[in-house]
């Protein structure tokens, strides 16, 4: 048993784990791995590097195999942690109580593409870049693009977003249906191919963002979009951070359907220029824009934004209309996290994820910047500011206890500041284990309901225990 009399989960007894491992080996052979190296690799995501190793890692290939593994775990009351490629930022995959890590990387097939209906069905281990590569030639694409090349199953579980959420929404808007293995090892399909359904509760959206605490997502039905007729990208640099943020706010309030607006402060620009060898840019607060639509609408949007930016002291646009120039620009943006890490080799980093109502964005960004300056830490700002979401990438020396504490305090203040402004501590990275406190601060009464739902759908608390929803007795 892994739950003691007072309901507190502890690591499973080693005899139970050994028995389960034998059973798994009988069914899955060398797709069951217990080597230290593989367990270490599966014990953490990106961000704060505190690892907690699973006891066993299994590599299933289809829904039935996942269900079979979960049934064995359920019978033995041993935790189950689903794993994509390990790029989550809040400790989602750390095996806090040991157990079985289900690595979905071998479930990497695109099952169907329905071009006429603008949807597709994929296995959970398909990554976003793989999906878009397989869609080449169909004229379609999947827009959600977190910095990492994450799996779609992981993106759904963390309700990921990306640089173009302003126009295309987050995973919440783009998952039409799911196949989920329940904690008892049953296979459930939610949603479907219809564009809308009001049949029953919205289980699809309940599992999206549940961080693997209610079940294992094994397949996804996703919305696809036609590649716009015209795409152009532009860069605009500003004399100060406030002017850049104010430009974004006015654009959002006017409802200009810009596909992407990304803010990079001086420190982040500095890191990206060095890391991605960007030429022709100054170390100044900068906005990256991308416009999607017809030739006419793209020209119009760009002209409106350019005049707004000029009103706020922005430089003339530097255009990137050729696909290779655009992709260099966005690659630099997607690599911002790695660029920041490269500023101080040997240091580690974690990212904050505040999201506030757009009308409070300037206040929140400026106060946060002042806060960073007061700590003396290096923490560049980058963000999808069109939807009020921005990140600090806080660098710290893992060997320096004081510096780490200072970094964690800064991150906590960012969360609480966002919540105090009517926002949230996590726009897209999720709760995982690092933000449980902030969730309580933000949600109050709704936490009790989340706990009841967790207990109703996972009565033995075997699905990714210790994450997302704090359960009394399980810190």
């Amino acid at each position, binding site marked *: 048993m892994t739950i003691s009399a007072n309901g507190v989960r502890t690591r499973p007894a080693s005899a139970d784990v050994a028995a389960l491992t034998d059973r798994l080996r009988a069914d899955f052979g060398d797709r069951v791995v217990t080597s230290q190296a593989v367990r270490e690799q599966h014990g953490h995501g990106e961000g704060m590097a505190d690892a907690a190793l699973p006891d066993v890692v299994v590599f299933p290939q289809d829904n039935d195999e996942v269900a079979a593994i979960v049934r064995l775990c359920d019978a033995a009351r041993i935790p189950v942690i689903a794993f994509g490629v390990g790029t989550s930022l809040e400790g989602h995959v750390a095996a806090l109580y040991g157990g079985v890590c289900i690595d979905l990387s071998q479930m990497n097939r695109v099952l169907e593409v329905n071009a006429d209906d603008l949807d597709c069905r994929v296995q959970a281990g398909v990554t976003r870049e793989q999906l878009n590569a397989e869609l080449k030639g169909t004229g379609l694409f999947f827009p959600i693009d977190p910095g990492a090349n994450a799996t779609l199953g992981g993106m759904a579980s963390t309700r990921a977003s990306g640089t173009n959420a302003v126009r295309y929404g987050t995973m919440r808007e783009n998952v039409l249906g799911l196949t989920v293995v329940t904690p008892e090892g049953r296979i*459930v399909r939610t949603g479907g*191919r219809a564009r809308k359904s009001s049949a029953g*509760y919205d289980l699809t959206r309940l599992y999206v963002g*549940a961080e693997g605490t209610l079940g294992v997502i094994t397949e996804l039905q996703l919305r696809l979009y036609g590649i*716009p007729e015209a795409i152009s990208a532009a860069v605009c640099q500003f004399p100060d951070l406030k002017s850049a943020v104010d430009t974004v706010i006015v654009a959002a309030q006017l409802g200009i359907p810009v596909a992407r607006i990304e803010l990079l402060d001086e420190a982040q620009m500095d890191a990206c220029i060095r890391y991605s060898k960007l030429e022709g840019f100054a170390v100044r607060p900068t906005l990256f824009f991308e416009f999607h639509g017809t030739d006419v609408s793209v020209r119009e949007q760009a002209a409106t934004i350019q005049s707004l930016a000029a009103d706020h002291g922005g430089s003339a646009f530097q255009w990137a209309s050729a696909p290779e120039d655009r992709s260099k620009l966005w690659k630099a943006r997607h690599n911002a996290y790695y660029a920041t890490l490269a500023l101080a080799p040997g240091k580690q980093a974690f990212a904050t994820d505040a999201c506030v109502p757009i009308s409070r964005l300037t206040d929140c960004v400026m106060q946060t910047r002042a806060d960073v300056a007061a700590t003396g830490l290096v923490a560049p700002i980058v963000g999808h500011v069109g939807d009020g*979401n921005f990140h600090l990438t806080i660098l710290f020396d893992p060997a320096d206890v004081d510096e780490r504490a200072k970094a964690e305090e800064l991150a906590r203040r960012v969360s609480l500041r966002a919540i105090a402004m009517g926002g949230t501590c996590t726009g897209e990275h999720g709760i995982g284990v690092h933000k449980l406190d902030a969730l309580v601060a933000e949600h109050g009464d709704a936490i009790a309901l*989340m706990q009841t739902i967790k207990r109703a759908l996972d009565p033995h608390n075997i699905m990714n225990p210790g994450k997302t929803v704090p359960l009394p007795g399980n810190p």
Partner: protein
Amino acid sequence: MLDPSFASALASLLPASSLLTATEDTRPYECDGLTLYRELPAAVVLPETEDQVVRILQLCHAARVPVVARGAGTSLSGGSLPVAGGVVLSLAKFRRIVAIDPLARTAVVEPGVRNLAISEAAGACGLFYAPDPSSQIACSIGGNVAENAGGVHCLKYGLTVHNVRKVRAVLVTGEIVEFGADALDAPGYDLLALITGSEGLLAVITQITVKLLPKPQLAQVALAAFDDVEKAGVAVGAIIGAGIIPGGLEMMDQPATRAVEQFVHADYPLDAAAVLLVEADGTPEEVAAEMDEIRAVLTRSGATEIRVSQSEAQRLLYWSGRKAAFPAVGRISPDYYCIDGTIPRAALPRVLRQIEAWSREYGLPCANVFHAGDGNLHPLILFDANKPGDQERTVEFGDRILELCIEVGGTVTGEHGVGIEKIRGMCVQFAPAALERFLGVKAAFDERGLLNPGKGVPTLARCAEFGAMHVHAGQLPHPELPRF
């Protein structure tokens, strides 16, 4: 009949004018938009404050009396049908628009506010609320959230679930809870999505924050005629396939256009087998460019005539026919039964052809008027409840349409909800493992099952009974289909 001590406790919570118990007073509440089903409630309460809602629910919870929340009573699936011996909790007095914030582009409203009243109030700031069910002049926003209502503009702007930021609600135990956030995303489980479309089974909504959108500078609608229903269905797919997401993409067949024309004179071509309405909105330049593309696709798809509205008055005239389709059909037939199945768009031609064949087989006329871009069908089966056997054949015809929707990968309800009407369809669409998840969610919110019992989610026992009737020779219909 209410227990006398419960009745007096209820009376002590409310002014006399807010509590109805006499049959002549409760009669108007016996049904909603789905008049096939009727039931008199033991009492109707009309609270004015959230505190009264809390106390009413606490009282009902303690006495284990079922409660059915009701907005404007326009549900098409029996969502607000009373429960025998239960209380109807009307939110009709919650009709304040609390705040409109043009910078954040949100409105905070009470649940009894009419859908259209939000857009009317926001219009002064150049904003509007996008989801627009055809009943928008009457239906209330609380009911829209409870049913996850759709509408003509949902193809481009999303359903209710995409346009609500925050909901404040009272649980059956009387606790007040807020779901969602003012910011884009709220962490933890997506309880806002659970509440949206929960048909009054999880909580009673007392306040809603909706998103507002800037009104497009210009909107134009193209009206295209086809000599064949299937061709019109193919044209719908061709428009979306060309990468155009119109503001609205609606289809009506000849029985529908003829009914409408007699009613509102919307200037539809009556010799056409089907008519498509395709709207483009945005800046004048965008609209002009999109209209050119729409026209080209419609021509390629075999449209026999295309008219584009040349003024706002003409645009509204073309839409008036679509929006008045249900009442128009109501004028030409003693009764009609509206189906709400939704299918992947590519299956439209096949399903429309089959509905036409069944209409002949059953001898029941069927008018099709629907959100074609979403694949959301609304076949209206015309019948006469006073003719022996008509109603039974109508329900059978409707059930077959819904089973076909599931077979092609769709759902039994796109936007009207399950209510009482489609509870059996749920057993066909979802396997027991999924139904158990639903029941688990329900129990987490309302362990005693007091909120809107008998609606939305069937019990497994009920599905077993239904299955016993429909399993033929031990075989489920379409065993090859995933029961999701």
